[in-house]
């Protein structure tokens, strides 16, 4: 008789669709988001922000605000004890503006008071005299030098070229276009919030904050406070979504400064309007792109010029630029390329990380180009993409060889094979909610045209360009219970779920305890770049394997076995011949193992002056097909269905993967048809959820999904990050479907009714 592994395998291992460990608390309202945290005697903090995109500060008079009862502290740049500026890549952004303000919303002062309303009145009472200056809002003027520098570091944040292969190569078919991508907001629902509690005497501070990267915050806060890094202790406050917007510092330093100044706990909560000004956004971009191809549709060369508007401060603009230009070719073979890319400084809102990180912009351009190329060559757009589909071993325009699993053709074929919606325009029941315009009853079925569009993308995973990218995890195993410690920000993506699955699979335990997420262990890096499953998953996996090794050693020595013969089967330790079996709980009774591991991916390199180098470490691929119904006369759109086949490597938790895919597509849909921060001469026109529109239940369609599981041998668990790809090519697929419905070109996103109707 043999015992098969499956019989004893417990639910909750890798590959199982188990539910979130924090799900119960979240549905009952007891999960503590950072905005839910309070403390005895706590004060409220609030931030005074610039009303001007560019101005010289002549004077700041805070004294009237001190006369308001309940105001406890007011701080400005003069009160910053350490570094006066901060930033993720270059430290170019002031904690508080003192000489110049460079964007609408730039912090100038902060107050602490007994009530949010007292704070509001105090902010209104502060008198700032400005000498208003002409703002730089056109990115081209940052490049051509026609506007004086608005910052000591100059108006060009980074310029990078890619020159690859035969730059004079040409093809029988040439297509080109100018594309524009609007500024998208991450629009997480859980607004920025923090609680800072100072140590008696002010030697240190505890900060609970919703962030993507605790240790980077810690480093930047410590520098600005002029305190040792260890004295700044960060704990992750429950995070209500992030999507890139919490990678940069926002309220962290201000909250700590107010707490240290008053000696009391201080809470700062941003309002929605303030949040639009208080965090970085997706870069608006203008892209010119030209493709040369053979008459039968094979890509010969791509040329592009990309301009990313970084806004007033650098944030991650230089890395976003590199992502954009290195993804110019898309998931297609291309031997020759000339790309010129700029990330520039303007007096617009600062831009930085958002899901897709530069690749969203590039993909909208290259996929629009693929459709143009298909038309020019007389080839079906799907066939054209298959013809050029990248494969493992192909060389990118940076000279880097694709070493990971690259099932591009399979993504395309499986997406194309997914079923189309079976409902006709308007459905069968006459419910107006099925038509573009919905309850507005703007159209009848006869006014509507249906269109289908297709798009494919490639996305780099993890950090690039030589960054020392690592994650740390600690695993303790005692009495059959595994305890995991990591500083990985759980922002909703579900790392806490798969961390437990990893430990159960590796160690054969059922009970996994997750320690608080804080700076009490080494850095996990940021929850961004689709990297945590790979990086922190890799770290947890490695720590658990080390502990398992110690456990096997102990079991082997106490039972006279060879540790190399032992393995985990379900909840038991067994030997290779099936004679020995002991439960992990029994084997570890009275024992304790404790290991901490730093996991690193393969090192990457900087790009040289021609944009050559192994700057990325791994890639994921996805295809999207969109079906849309369009009212061409009114320019209204309803997306009817998205189909997608995504290269996930291995789905560690299929339910969770599905959630990432559907959620990512919703953000891609938002960029396609409604989401844009509208700025006029440096001023934001729509900083509210009334006017910055997010997709609702009635805007987001059903999603048909095929998971392509080809475990990647490079990935520690075979799994690729799945968060970003859904956001990237869903946008151009929807736009392609709109073009298909109306038969006219559209070269910018979001697509507005006026772009569809084409009014004079």
């Amino acid at each position, binding site marked *: 008789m043999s015992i098969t592994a499956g019989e004893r395998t417990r639910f909750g291992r890798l590959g199982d669709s188990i539910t979130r460990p924090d799900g119960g608390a979240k549905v*009952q309202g*007891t999960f503590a*988001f950072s905005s839910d945290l309070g403390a005895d005697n706590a004060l409220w903090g609030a931030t005074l922000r610039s009303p001007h995109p560019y101005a010289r500060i002549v004077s700041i008079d805070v004294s009237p605000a001190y006369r308001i009862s309940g105001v406890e502290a007011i701080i400005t740049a003069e009160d910053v004890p350490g570094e006066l500026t901060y930033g993720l890549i270059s430290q170019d952004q002031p904690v508080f503006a003192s000489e110049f303000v460079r964007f609408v919303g730039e912090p100038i002062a902060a107050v602490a008071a007994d009530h949010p309303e007292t704070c509001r009145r105090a902010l209104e009472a502060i008198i700032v005299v400005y000498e208003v200056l002409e703002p730089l809002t056109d990115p081209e003027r940052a490049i051509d030098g026609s506007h004086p520098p608005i910052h000591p570091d100059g108006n060009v944040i980074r310029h990078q070229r890619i020159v690859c292969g035969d730059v004079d190569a040409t093809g029988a078919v040439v297509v080109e276009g100018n594309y524009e991508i609007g500024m998208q907001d991450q629009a*997480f*629902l859980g607004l920025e919030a923090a609680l800072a509690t100072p140590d008696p005497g002010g030697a240190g501070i505890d900060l609970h904050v919703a962030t993507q990267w605790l240790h980077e915050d810690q480093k930047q806060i410590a520098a600005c406070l002029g305190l040792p890094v260890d004295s700044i202790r960060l704990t992750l406050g429950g995070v209500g979504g992030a999507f890139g917007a919490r990678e940069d510092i926002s309220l962290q330093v201000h909250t700590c400064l107010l707490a240290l100044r008053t000696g009391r706990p201080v809470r700062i909560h941003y309002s929605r309007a303030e949040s639009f000004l208080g965090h970085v956004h997706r870069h608006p971009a203008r892209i010119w792109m030209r493709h040369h191809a053979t008459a039968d549709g094979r890509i010969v060369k791509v040329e592009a010029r990309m301009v990313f508007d970084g806004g007033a401060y650098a944030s991650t603009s230089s890395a976003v630029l590199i992502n954009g230009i290195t993804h110019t070719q898309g998931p297609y073979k291309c031997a020759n390329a000339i790309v010129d890319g700029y990330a520039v400084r303007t007096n617009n809102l600062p831009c930085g990380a958002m899901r897709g990180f530069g690749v969203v912009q590039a993909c909208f351009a290259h996929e629009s180009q693929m459709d143009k190329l298909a038309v020019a060559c007389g080839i079906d757009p799907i066939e054209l993409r298959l013809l050029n589909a990248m494969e493992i071993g192909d060389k990118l325009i940076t000279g880097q060889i694709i070493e990971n699993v690259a099932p591009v053709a399979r993504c395309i074929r499986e997406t194309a094979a997914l079923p189309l919606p079976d409902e006709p325009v308007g459905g069968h029941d006459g419910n107006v909610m099925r038509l573009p315009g919905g309850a507005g009853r703007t159209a009848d079925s006869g006014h509507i045209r249906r269109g289908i569009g297709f798009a494919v993308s490639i996305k780099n995973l993890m950090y690039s360009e030589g960054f020392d990218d690592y994650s740390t995890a600690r695993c303790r195993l005692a009495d059959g219970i595994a305890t995991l410690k990591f500083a990985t920000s759980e922002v909703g993506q579900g790392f806490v779920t798969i961390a437990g699955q990893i430990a159960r699979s590796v160690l054969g335990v059922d009970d996994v305890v997750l320690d608080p997420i804080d700076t009490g262990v080494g850095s996990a890096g940021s929850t961004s770049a689709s990297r945590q499953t790979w990086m922190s998953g890799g770290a947890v996996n490695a720590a658990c394997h080390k502990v398992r090794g110690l456990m096997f050693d102990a079991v082997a020595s106490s039972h006279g076995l060879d540790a190399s013969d032992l393995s985990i089967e379900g909840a038991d330790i067994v030997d290779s011949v099936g004679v020995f079996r002991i439960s992990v709980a029994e084997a570890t009774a009275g024992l304790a193992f404790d290991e901490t591991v730093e996991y690193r991916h393969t090192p990457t390199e900087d790009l040289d002056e021609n944009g050559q180098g192994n700057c990325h470490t791994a890639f994921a691929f996805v295809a999207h097909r969109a079906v849309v119904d369009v009212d061409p006369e009114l320019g209204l759109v309803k997306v009817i269905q998205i189909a997608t086949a995504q290269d996930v490597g291995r789905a560690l938790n299929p339910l969770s993967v599905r959630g990432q895919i559907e959620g990512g597509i919703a953000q891609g849909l938002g960029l396609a048809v409604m989401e844009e921060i509208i700025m006029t001469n440096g001023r934001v026109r729509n900083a509210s959820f009334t006017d910055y529109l997010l997709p609702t239940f009635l805007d987001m369609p059903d999603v048909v999904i095929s998971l392509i599981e080809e475990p990647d041998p490079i990935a520690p668990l075979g799994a690729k990050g799945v968060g970003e790809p859904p956001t990237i090519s869903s946008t151009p697929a929807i736009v392609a479907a709109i073009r298909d419905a109306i038969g006219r070109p559209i070269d910018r996103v979001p697509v507005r009714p006026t772009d569809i109707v084409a009014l004079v």
Partner: protein
Amino acid sequence: MSDQLAAATVVGLDEHYRLHVNGTDHDVRDAWVGESLLYVLRERLGLTGSKGACEQGECGSCSVLVDGELVCSCLVMAASAIGQPILTIEGIAPVGSPSDVQQAFVDAGAVQCGFCTPGLIMATHNLLERSPDPDVVEIREELSGNVCRCTGYGRIIDAVQRVSIARRAEAAE
């Protein structure tokens, strides 16, 4: 204060008022009367399950029932809700014993960051009480005041349908 003013129920800044939340009377003291019900629930009564994300009724995260009606608590002036029964997420089910809707949200994968979740739980309970067997389009319309930024809504719709089906099966037994 004039006689005319005295004729109406008056809540003044220096007085306290009382809210009836989840079956219990709660005293609210020393409050600024401009405070929304959301603020009072969260900051004065310690009921932080209702979430604020827009302050203007455009996201549904703060949904509660006032006098049986699903409303945005950010748009209710707290002092104007005196004497009316208020039901919040904390009043849906005891901690550790989730309602069928709450459990379905967990099981269906309808929760990611979870910030919109309490508001959606309130809206879903309200929907299924009024319309026990909604089709997908009705679910979408009835929940369209609750914005979720993480899930793309697919798993939430699945959760609502699971409850609807389970309740029907239970009723048939």
